[in-house]
């Protein structure tokens, strides 16, 4: 309705002008001298995120262990990523729970994903220490719903990719230069306190979040 558009903009433009304030000098708050990864781990485990340290070489084995511990029958994965290739190699040597590729549009995958997938694994762009948040940028290989629909999300985090704050991450990742269609901060498994203010986990997003912290 260009009528509404011009009316709204006109009313805004004819209003009394107020000065445009300068943004005051500011440092994002860092409460401790705790190393970034420790801060991140402390915050995310406080809201039931699980952090498991591992190495590149041991990644597939750690995934296998997590799937066994959580009794997962299958795992949604992206075969064309490094993570996917590592899993394919490991599963070739020794089979494990079924690896399901997210290789078709969601319309064809929906019923399967909503009802029958136990876990999904994605990479991350890094993590933010001050808020305990993973940075997840869905890609063509790792689409948006991969970290959301399966009840268990396994996220691979390279410990070297820590940022203190969102502000730092935006600057260093060039986040504000043409960002992908969906970018996310994920800070734990899904939760709510809508019933009498009592905290409950696993509402609509994943019930469990396991972070594989790759230290090398």
């Amino acid at each position, binding site marked *: 309705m260009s009528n509404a558009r011009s009316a709204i903009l006109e009313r*805004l433009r004819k209003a009394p002008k*107020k000065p445009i304030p300068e943004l005051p000098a500011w440092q994002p708050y860092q409460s401790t001298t705790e190393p970034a990864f420790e801060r991140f781990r402390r915050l995310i485990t406080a809201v039931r995120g699980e952090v498991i340290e591992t190495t590149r070489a041991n990644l597939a084995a750690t995934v296998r262990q997590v799937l066994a511990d959580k009794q997962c029958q299958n795992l949604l994965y992206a075969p064309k990523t490094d993570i996917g290739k590592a899993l394919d190699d490991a599963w070739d040597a020794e089979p494990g729970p079924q690896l399901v590729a997210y290789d078709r549009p*969601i319309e064809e995958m929906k019923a399967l994903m909503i009802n029958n997938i136990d876990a999904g694994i994605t990479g991350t762009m890094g993590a933010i220490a001050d808020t305990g948040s993973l940075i997840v940028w869905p890609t063509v290989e790792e689409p948006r719903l991969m970290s959301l629909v399966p009840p268990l999300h396994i996220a691979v985090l390279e410990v070297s990719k820590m940022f203190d704050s969102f502000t730092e991450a935006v600057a260093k990742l060039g986040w504000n230069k043409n960002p992908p269609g969906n970018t996310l901060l994920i800070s734990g498994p899904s939760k709510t306190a809508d*019933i*009498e203010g009592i905290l409950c986990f*696993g509402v*609509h997003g994943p019930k469990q979040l396991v972070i594989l912290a790759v230290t090398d």
Partner: protein
Amino acid sequence: MPELSHDFEHAAVEALGNKQLRTNLRRVMTGLINKRAAQFPDFDELQALRTRGAAIKDRALAKLPDLLVQLEQNLIAKGFHVHWAQSVEEGNKIILDILKKANARSIIKGKSMVSEEMHFNHFLEENGVKALESDLGEYIIQLAGETPSHIVMPAIHKNKDQIGKLFQEKIDGQPYTEDPDELTAAARRVLRQLFASADCGFSGVNFAAADTGTLVLISNEGNGRMSTHLPSMHIALMGIEKCIERLEDVGPLISLACRSATGQPITTYVNMISGPRKSNEKDGPKEVHLVLLDNGRTKIYQDPELREGLRCIRCAACMNHCPVYTRIGGHAYQYTYPGPIGEVLNPQMQGIEKAGDVLHASSLCGRCSEVCPVKIPLADLIVRLRREAIRPAADAVKGGGSRKSNMEDVIWFGWKTMYASPLLYRWGTWWLRKIGNFMPAGIPLLKQWTSVRSKPQFASRSIYDLARERGIRDE
């Protein structure tokens, strides 16, 4: 739940008598107050962050028309559709047209207070589209046929046994349980299928970054992501004041909002949407629409003082800390927004003649202004609106002057005459001391006072007489 009367005072009194409501509110609000305090142990850091948050919002408001144009350009370049609506009616029609064109019969919603302004669900139902709430609190009140009583925790007025009974009644095959985890699991089960089958997803917008063309949505449950990425179409609705300059401004604003609202460093999900599904992508909505709503905001914008209320980031810290809200809950406020921000927005959006009685719902204790993460002087804005109610400043507010009372004008004229004159003050107070204590407790004003208090006693001597006797100089 008894039908609340339309008069604010009656509604407040009824709510006061609801023991369960008061107990729930007191417990939860006290918890939120403590959680927020625990997030801000450093007073200087808090004040610096509030100053930054207020400056970010003030910059965005000062540049709003240009930022909205920039936002629109960037969104369109990325494949969004952008619509503008001046009124609630226009907004509802635009959305209905989008849905009809896409043959959508059902829409699944993330929480959106601005959709409450539009009475959106009701409008859609009347026009043959099912609107399903997916936020747990909103889902609960939708099942109960009610409206939200708090902007962040909509079902806070309900107990778990009530919710258990509600689920048992309304969800096929659901046995009675009071266990919150089991109730949550039941909602997850039901809504999961609805996310998958809905024709369209709907959301509000917490912040829209003009520089990158990004819609930012914060949530704990994940329903925001489900409803904006599972269905093949997403419609987002936003008040025009939610537009901010830059994506990086989101950092301090989210820090303020989450720590002030629920005492968390951040919500579980920060969902940033910068485009629909690309041709080589496998998921995400193929069509994304943003509807920009005015509904009285441009009018508020005209007044430099009242414009400060448009900084609001809908965190609810003000109502969490409000001693009046804690005792009466959100429904008593009658219109979309409860608590202090409701006292500022509702009379301006609905008109003072309709929603102005809520302006006296405040003892002006100032806690709201103290905790507002973007430094809105809420208590002062309430006083300003009280003035607009009786002595409007040239069309500043809808319904200005509609609460003018000749009797009150006379009272304050008399008060001023006595108090601005030293002689009349001495004479008037001399009489009050003589006869004041004979006033019966049942007369208007004294009657309200003495319902729970003893009558105040006028002293027999003035302090000025005592002082003279004790040798205190008067100049």
